[in-house]
């Protein structure tokens, strides 16, 4: 399905561990396994959704992709270049092509800078790499971008606190797209917004993607939003991908027990359509000492002996390259779920 589309980002066995220090001599006491061996490819113009519960490593993964967190292991290739091996100067140039939108627009915009100077900063940092050399040219361009994201010209001289949450998120988006990047990592861009404003921002993001042929990595915990915007989805659990598929396929036939539980737990805004819930027991275990074998086995209703010892690989199912699951018994469970009457 991606024939003809260019491979933009290729992630192989990416790991990010954070050391924990403590005790009198500030000893190394262990690691937080935030991202624990993740691989995927993203093609140009595509949206990849990353979903999972808090602490599953989605934000860390997003930052590791942009080398904001240098990875502990594995590689991230952007347009065929391994970003871990390039020089600092070259990395800075590459950052022009990869930008980020953050969840909390109040904290990610400098309160002492006017919107005009916030948006001018990327042009100054990447001086010489674009055609906007003079201050006037930059101002014209910034005004054009402001209009593009649905803000009034007068925003130029205002400060972030003068805007509402939705408008601030638009400023964050404007900053991210200012240099016409190829890849934008969006870390929970609409989670902090009210529903009526959320739809405005989502519409804006979809429109910009079409106009500028942007590639999004869309990180969120709201599965309905992710399904709406993403072409492909990776479901994460404790630093690993448990299932990856086209978004339609993922919601229609989730294969992994965790994905099934996650989808069944979404409250559907329709009282007539209340489905039978699959309520998972217990909490997400600590990423400091993840359980051995399959990370999900302590909460999995179908866990067996093998799950406690062997960590399952992410593998394709039914010969379908697009749908990958990491569960030893995926076929068996799926066959059972599909034909409940035969049991």
């Amino acid at each position: 399905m991606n024939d003809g589309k260019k491979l933009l980002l290729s992630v192989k066995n990416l790991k990010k561990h954070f050391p924990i220090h403590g005790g009198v001599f500030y000893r190394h006491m262990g690691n937080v396994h935030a991202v624990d061996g993740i691989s995927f490819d993203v093609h140009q113009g595509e949206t990849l959704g990353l979903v999972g519960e808090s602490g599953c490593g989605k934000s860390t993964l997003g930052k590791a992709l942009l080398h904001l967190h240098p990875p502990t292991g594995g590689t991230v290739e952007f347009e065929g270049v391994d970003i871990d091996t390039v020089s600092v100067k070259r990395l800075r140039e590459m950052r022009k092509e990869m930008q980020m939108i953050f969840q909390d627009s109040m904290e990610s915009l400098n309160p002492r800078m006017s919107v005009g100077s916030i948006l001018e900063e990327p042009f100054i940092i990447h001086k010489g790499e674009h055609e906007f050399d003079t201050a006037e040219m930059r101002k014209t361009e910034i005004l054009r971008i402001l209009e593009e994201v649905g803000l009034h010209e007068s925003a130029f001289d205002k400060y972030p606190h003068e805007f509402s949450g939705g408008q601030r998120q638009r400023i964050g988006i404007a900053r991210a797209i200012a240099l016409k990047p190829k890849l934008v990592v969006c870390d929970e861009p609409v989670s902090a917004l009210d529903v009526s404003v959320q739809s405005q921002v989502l519409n804006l993001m979809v429109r910009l993607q079409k106009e500028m042929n942007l590639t999004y990595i869309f990180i969120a915990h709201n599965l309905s939003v992710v399904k709406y915007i993403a072409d492909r989805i990776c479901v994460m659990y404790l630093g690993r991908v448990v299932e990856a598929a086209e978004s339609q396929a993922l919601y229609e036939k989730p294969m992994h027990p965790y994905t099934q539980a996650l989808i069944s737990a979404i409250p559907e805004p329709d009282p007539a359509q209340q489905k039978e819930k699959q309520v998972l027991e217990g909490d997400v275990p600590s990423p400091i000492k993840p359980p051995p074998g399959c990370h999900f086995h302590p909460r999995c209703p179908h866990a067996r002996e093998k799950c406690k010892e062997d960590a399952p690989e992410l593998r394709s199912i039914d010969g379908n390259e697009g749908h990958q699951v990491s569960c030893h018994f995926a076929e068996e469970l799926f066959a059972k779920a599909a034909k409940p009457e035969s049991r």
Partner: protein
Amino acid sequence: MAILTVKNLVTTFQTDRGSVRALDGVDFTLEKGRTLGLVGESGCGKSVTSLSIMRLLPKPSGNSPEGEIIYDDGSDRFDILKEPTENLLKIRGRKIAMIFQDPLTSLNPVYTVGYQLMETLKVHFSKMSSQAMFTRAVELLTDVGIPAPEQRIHEYPHQLSGGMRQRVMIAIALACEPDILIADEPTTALDVTIQAQILDLMRNLQKKNDMAILFITHDLGVVAEMCDDVCVMYAGKVAEHAPVEEIFNHPQHPYTKGLLCSIPKLDTEQKSKLFEIEGMVPDLFSMPEGCRFQNRCPYAAEKCTQPQSPAQVKDGHEVSCIRHGEIGRNEE
């Protein structure tokens, strides 16, 4: 039977820029054993309503609310707003209990879970022996599904996970078997799988104790799942009040319609244009005359500047939109 009737509730705050009416004539009734959902976007007055009912607003910035809040459980009937402060201590926790959004900030970090549970029992049942209190506390923790309650009871809030803390909050709220539970965004800070656990728990406990729940949330999915009746609030006023099926199937107020259309659902077509409610909530200092939604409303007309009063559409379905009749007809 209506256990709580709120009539024309007005809450004003004094600020540096003058006084602000955060609630401007809120009316609703909460029925015994049922769940009423209070829905709306941030700043619409959902939480102020709950704090006004509990009389928990800070003084002097929050003037005492005006209007009536009648509590009536059949044997006892009084207006909460007219009760003297010392009586309030007997109402809070015993008759009306509350759980908050963030359990970590509402639990005291320096006391054990058990201490905080027994504190409530001490206030309301002074004759209970400490042995009986401990037994009751363990029983409550078991009820809310905390594993190994005899050990957990000696732990501090930071030792528990988010879902566990919310369970403890619920246990504290239910300690004295209140008739009304006010839940202010109880699952907003939790993950979906944990949210499903907590909603499940609340439903079971409601059945068991026959409580009325006032459920405050901004998530329409949770409303569809939990509530029997819904009150949609906008800028300090009730826009629409109806049974849950009515709200989702036959919304009358343009704001309710807009809200329902703007959420992406699982069957929404991918990357199709979502419905937008134009603009944003007006500043409380410069509210328009008449209907407060008029500057964002696609159906706004001249008469929307007139004072609005709730109109009955059907039995139990009230909408405060002066044009609701015309709008409905246009669409059919």
